């Protein structure tokens, strides 16, 4: 019943939210199966909510009466009489313990046997992201004003001029106008339940028709989905699109003039976002910020609305205000621990992992290697000195506050000379020398910076002499380094 037998003509409208995929599509089971039983039940309740039930009508007996020809009795889930009955059925599932499969079956074969709408699918996907914040790799992009006005022209200018304000439906309209002639898409905006983010899920197809005739499987294809996250009140956006702005010449040099592969469709969407955000006389462009990470928490800490965008590594003591207290605190600052400073005046920060050892791969490799320096029972004087050095280099990053980077790529432009390369510089990671005399280091793990901090605490890395990019001060995941400091290309 997904396809009405009306005339099909190419349009520029977006894919309707109520376009139904046949419930028998095998990939639907996979998409639903990502969620936990509780999450599925929550979604079902949400669909059956009084305010939403118009958009997601379940299959009821009255629907059954309209088409008699269907084989009755065969379905294990007889259609319910009213919406309340459907709700009760899920309440029952809620109370009962069981696998999630029965919930999926109930949804797909029972109450929504007439099809799952694109909006429902989008909700399933967003719920998955909410439950698994590290399921995607996010790239942070900066929204920069083209032809920024000179300060101070007059201080009466709008104070928030640096941030484009967006009204969700207006933005979606203009985004749709931008990409409609080229890409047919379905849009879904949702608010994250745990983070200060708004997600936009865009599903792109290459068919110009309102009701595409492709296999339903292609409508659940994960590679055709783009996620864009808008953090609150800061000039950054995060996308799940992998490619960077610079790499226009992608490796898949498509010979067709109109590329229809998911990648180029995604690029069209990405190019349209700044245009959709722009207003007359206020144009925006997206700039790469060399930060890609799996953890949205890290992105929010490093490119977010908070205090820690521009102060990491050694300067994180300022971002967390771990150095001094408020001016009303009578205790001298040096007698108060940083933790107390961080927690006293503001609501208890959710330091989720105060001392959790992050098992980065670096360390695993390290532990195999016998190292004379890693004996913890060393001279207490030396270790005290070392811990002070670590403290001053890393500040609170990697211990009290964390922005877990899962990958850090560094290219060292200095030729590796044997004299200036003591053992302490040898980082236990995969190193690959290239033909040019430069060195590329790649760190992977769950939290690189705290891993390096651990190494420094153990004395493997000399905390005093290491360059500042190792402390996460630059807040990037890709860096080109010359003589210890990051080289920033103008081209971005």
């Amino acid at each position, binding site marked *: 019943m997904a396809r009405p037998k009306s005339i099909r003509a190419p349009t520029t409208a977006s894919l309707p939210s109520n376009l139904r995929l046949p419930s028998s599509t095998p990939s639907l089971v996979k998409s639903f199966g990502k969620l936990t039983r509780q999450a599925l039940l929550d979604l079902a309740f949400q669909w059956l909510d009084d305010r939403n039930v118009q958009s997601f009508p379940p299959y009821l007996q009255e629907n059954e009466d309209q088409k008699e020809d269907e084989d009755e009795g065969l379905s294990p889930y007889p259609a319910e009489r009213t919406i309340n009955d459907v709700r009760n059925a899920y309440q029952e599932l809620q109370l009962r313990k069981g696998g999630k499969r029965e919930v999926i079956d109930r949804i797909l074969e029972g109450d929504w046997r007439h099809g799952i709408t694109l909006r429902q699918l989008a909700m399933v996907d967003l719920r998955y992201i909410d439950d698994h914040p590290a399921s995607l790799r996010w790239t942070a992009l900066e929204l920069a004003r083209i032809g920024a006005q000179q300060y101070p022209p007059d201080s009466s200018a709008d104070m*928030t001029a640096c941030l484009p*304000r967006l009204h969700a439906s207006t933005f979606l309209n203009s985004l749709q106008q931008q990409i409609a002639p080229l890409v047919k898409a379905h849009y879904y905006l949702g608010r994250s339940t745990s983070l200060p983010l708004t997600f936009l899920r865009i599903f792109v197809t290459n068919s110009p028709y309102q009701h595409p005739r492709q296999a339903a499987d292609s409508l659940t294809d994960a590679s055709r989905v783009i996620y864009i996250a808008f953090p609150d009140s800061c000039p950054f956006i995060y996308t799940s699109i992998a490619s960077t702005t610079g790499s226009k010449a992608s490796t898949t040099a498509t010979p067709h003039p109109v590329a229809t592969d998911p990648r180029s469709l995604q690029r069209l969407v990405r190019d349209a976002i700044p245009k959709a955000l722009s207003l007359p006389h206020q144009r925006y462009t997206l700039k790469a910020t060399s930060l890609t990470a799996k953890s949205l928490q890290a992105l929010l800490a490093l490119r977010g*609305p908070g205090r820690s965008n*521009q*102060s990491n590594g050694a300067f994180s003591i300022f971002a967390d205000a771990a150095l*001094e207290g408020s001016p009303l605190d*009578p205790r001298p600052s040096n007698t108060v621990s940083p933790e107390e400073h961080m927690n006293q005046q503001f609501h208890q920060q959710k330091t989720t992992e105060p001392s959790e050892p992050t098992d980065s791969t670096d360390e695993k490799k390290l532990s195999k290697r016998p190292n004379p320096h890693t004996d913890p029972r060393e001279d207490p004087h030396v270790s005290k000195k070392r811990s002070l050095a670590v403290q001053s280099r890393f500040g609170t990053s990697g211990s009290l506050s964390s922005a877990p980077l899962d990958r850090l790529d560094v290219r060292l432009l200095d030729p590796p000379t044997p004299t200036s390369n003591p053992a302490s510089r040898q980082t236990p990671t995969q190193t690959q020398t290239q033909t040019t005399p430069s060195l590329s280091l790649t760190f992977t793990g769950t939290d690189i910076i705290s891993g390096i901090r651990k190494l420094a605490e153990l004395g493997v890395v000399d905390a005093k002499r290491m*360059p500042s990019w190792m402390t996460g001060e630059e807040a990037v995941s890709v860096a080109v380094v010359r003589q210890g400091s990051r080289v920033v290309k103008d081209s971005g």
Partner: protein
Amino acid sequence: MEDDDLDSEISTIRAEIRTLQHRRRILSSSILASRPLQRLATKAHPQSPPSAQSQHQQQTQQWAEISPLLQSSSAHARTNHHRIGFSTTTFPFKDPSPTADTPNLLGVRIDIGLRDGTYTKPYYILLRTGTNREGKKEVSVHRHTVPAVVDVGGLERGYLPRSKVPTTTVDGEEVEAEAEAQLKPWKYKPKKQDLKGFVREVRKQLVVWHLRCDAVRYLREKLGVVRRGVDDDAAGFEEDEEGGWERDILGAAAGVGEETRIAKNDLGIVSLGPTALEAVYVRLEWEDGRVGRFKISSTGVVERAVVLGDNGRDKEMEDVITGGDGRVETLFDRLRKHGLSEREEGGDRSEHGDGGEGSEQGYGEDGSDHGDMGDESIL
């Protein structure tokens, strides 16, 4: 069962011990920094001639013992007085990075007082000092902790313009650039840097932002905020009344992201909150479905207001919101007055006894930041 009881008892006792220890520390440092004690110490300290009296000697010895503590706490108190009095203070900071080209940084600390008498986390700006081509001192922002609400980059471009240094690596290009610099000196002429202006502007924008947030919080508190899961049973909301819960972006007291809602009130407002973190626009929602939005100016005046109902715009309500003295804090007074007059017009003489607004106090009146708001011309 008993074990659980004991465990909880032990943990409560431990928590109490912690709070008491904390209190003791605060009190002892307050005593150390107090003026009578400081005066006594300065009196006792200089005159330490060898007197015969053993008691006196003992006393001086005691003073000598605690004098480092006294000194440090008096220094700390002095710093705090500066921070309270001037709100913007500077300090030196050394970049620990071994590869930093300018390790000595100038730190600027900005303390901003809030409505409830506390201070925000201090904001820091760390400035790098260098010299330009003419040997003049130049500062640039190295690191800062100012949130994105204040565009530090833009302000830096405006107030701390740096002389253009030909930063090309290729020799030929550099020569070319230098030649150009000689031919067209105006292009490379450094504009004057205004560090004071920069810091003043950053502080002003931070203060204005906090005042706006405070104003919105004040309005919400006036109406009464109900926190989900904490005190929602007392407020008498139905269990199934799911709608209306909103995430509190400002995080009034207990944490950002907590779900809150406005308590039932006589104004019929069901929701009031900033549209974004910068709290320039505030969204209002009434019981009857009207939706409004108003803008707070940097002087605390409601600048513009739009109210949309089912039958289009509610111009009368818009006038009420922007009318009167226009202050944000007196918004509800205006709304109440309007409601009252409307009711009288309608012939409804029912008593409306909710006028207990005597204790109302403007948010700018008790803080040291009032001067900032007053100084600004009305935009």
